[in-house]
């Protein structure tokens, strides 16, 4: 170790480890997936209709587990409800419980209203336990008259409309939890909520493209190319703005050359060199930008598009994961002594270890599979089932 390296004795520990990197990753996917659905329901992007329902369920599957990493991380998880029972209004963290709960209610209601006609039909077709489940999910109402459908549409539009600012608040707010820490120069920037929000949109849309392509491949169903191409175009747009902001943050500070820059440059060019410059910026941002140029600006054959688009989606899912790592873990590697860096070595079997992270990231996908048994994802399935 360099003789000039000095870390405050309490800064040797990285107190926010992988679970806290995972938490904004999962909430980001939720917010991003919701945006895809809103593009159809609010902004009338018709091409996205085939995945508009799926993206809501995708968001719900991840939302259900968004607080689990926090519980895994808390020193006294049994006191977690204190955050909603005795909130401290001056804390950036205290509002999360409320925002999360409200957003969850809006998302769940929107899904139930959008699926209502389907659920009513399924209720008539099924027996036993499933029939009971569908009765509960439709609140016992099977009124499908044009008048009631019209009311449904009004409610759906209202929920989707208030859902957009809520999704933005949910994730912009998560960014502010970091952006509001003045003691940490790599976090304390007003751009942090913006970068978090944009990267949330990127991870959500990328996740939808990847999982949509994957499910269609496995179930040997045709991919809706217009939908895939539109979705990829949106992903490209969001990603370019996201990446620009990420680079703007680094560039403007390195140009201003203030105290901030001198603190952060040692981190980015030192302990974070590989995970930031090589992976987040190089492999996982520059390469996707070129792939987007190819996919969006030239005429790529459907068969190739179907392979490259989910691949870019996967690359960007990993890019956002690296971004979360570099912000959350990377930010803590720099000691507040501004004279040195600590190290972080993830454990395998810890409560916040690698195994726990892998289990946690697979839980939403398992829930998504269970949801697919209750809510048919695709409109085509329904046509078959209704004959």
């Amino acid at each position, binding site marked *: 170790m360099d*003789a*000039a390296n*000095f870390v*405050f*004795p*309490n*800064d*040797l*520990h990285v*107190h*926010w480890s992988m679970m806290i990197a995972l938490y904004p990753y999962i909430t980001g996917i939720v917010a991003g997936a919701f945006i895809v659905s809103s593009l159809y329901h609010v902004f009338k992007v018709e091409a996205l209709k085939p995945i508009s329902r799926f993206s809501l369920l995708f968001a719900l599957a991840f939302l259900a587990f968004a607080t689990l990493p*926090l519980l895994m*991380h*808390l*020193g*006294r*998880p049994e*006191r*977690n409800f*204190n*955050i909603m029972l*005795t*909130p*401290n209004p*001056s*804390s*950036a*963290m*205290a509002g*999360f419980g409320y925002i999360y709960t409200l957003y969850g209610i809006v998302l769940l209601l929107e899904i139930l209203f959008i699926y209502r006609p389907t659920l009513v039909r399924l209720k008539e077709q099924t027996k036993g336990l499933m029939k009971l489940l569908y009765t509960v999910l439709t609140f016992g109402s099977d009124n499908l008259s044009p008048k009631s459908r019209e009311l449904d549409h009004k409610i759906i539009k209202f929920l989707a409309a208030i859902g957009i600012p809520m999704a933005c608040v949910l994730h912009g707010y998560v960014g502010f*939890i970091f952006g*509001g*820490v*003045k*003691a*940490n120069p790599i*976090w304390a920037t007003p751009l942090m909520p913006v970068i978090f929000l944009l990267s949330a949109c990127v991870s959500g849309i990328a996740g939808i493209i990847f999982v949509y392509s994957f499910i269609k491949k496995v179930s040997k169903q045709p991919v809706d190319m217009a939908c895939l191409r539109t979705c990829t175009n949106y992903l490209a747009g969001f990603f370019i703005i996201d990446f620009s902001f990420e680079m703007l943050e680094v560039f403007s500070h390195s140009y201003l050359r203030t105290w901030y820059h001198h603190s952060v440059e040692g981190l980015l060019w030192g302990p974070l060199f590989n995970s930031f410059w090589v992976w987040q910026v190089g492999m996982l941002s520059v390469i996707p930008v070129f792939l987007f140029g190819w996919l969006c600006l030239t005429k790529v054959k459907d068969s190739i598009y179907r392979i490259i688009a989910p691949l870019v989606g996967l690359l960007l899912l990993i890019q956002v994961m690296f971004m979360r790592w570099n912000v959350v873990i990377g930010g*803590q590697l720099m*000691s*507040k*002594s*501004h*004279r040195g860096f600590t190290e972080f070595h993830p454990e395998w079997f810890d409560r916040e270890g690698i195994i726990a992270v892998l289990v946690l990231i697979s839980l939403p996908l398992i829930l998504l599979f269970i949801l697919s048994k209750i809510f048919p994802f695709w409109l085509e399935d329904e046509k078959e089932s209704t004959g």
Partner: protein
Amino acid sequence: MDSIKSELDRDRRQFIKKVLKGTISGSLLLVIPAGAGVLKIPEQIDGIRGKDWAISEQNFAFIVDITLCIGCGACCVADKREFNVPDGYYRTWVERYLKDVDDEVYVDSPNGGLDGYQTPRKDLDKPIRDTFFVPKLCNMCEDPSCVQVCPVGATFRSPDGFVLIDQKRCIGCAYCIQGCPYSVRFLNPVTHMADKCTWCYHRVRKGLLPACVNVCPTGARKFGDLNDKESEVSKILRGHGVLTVLKKDMGNYPALYYKGLRREVV
């Protein structure tokens, strides 16, 4: 004969009774004595004893005189014993600053200075031209980041200027640890809650100096009430010496002042 025997029996009974009484009162003395003893120690801070509910009358400040610290580590030992601080975590620590002939600065704090600085650093090849020690502890800010960010209000500022943690409320989220610009907080691995220096609030409220101040052999650590114009800290703060606080630009307004602090210190 009978009378002698009964007398002996009585004696034996008396003996057993006395032994029993002795044992019980002896063990009781072992268990109970603590509280009473404290007040026998002469009052070290004036105007505290006997005024239990007048806590907003004082405004405490802590002054560290860099020019007096010899890096013995006695304060760190006293602190660790006072609070049973787990190994590897520090409520207070002492940093050693070295400047070589080219004005290159080297800082270290092995084991938080707990063992004292008994030998010079051996990993530097250039001649050292200057060296000094800097004790660190909670800054008890007037506008504390930790209180601002605590989501459940477990960290709070008392009317007499102490930033404390309510161990019945803390959820162990570690946001305060991230928020503290001075890195004085840590997540206690035993309680799984945030922990930090309290300026020995439990001692101060009984009229005693903080443990580290009490043991400092050179008087580098000073503590007292600013509202008491006769206290040492009052005189220093109103005196002509150079006083400064750490990381002034953070805007936290610490109540921990440093006398003779050098520009190299962060």
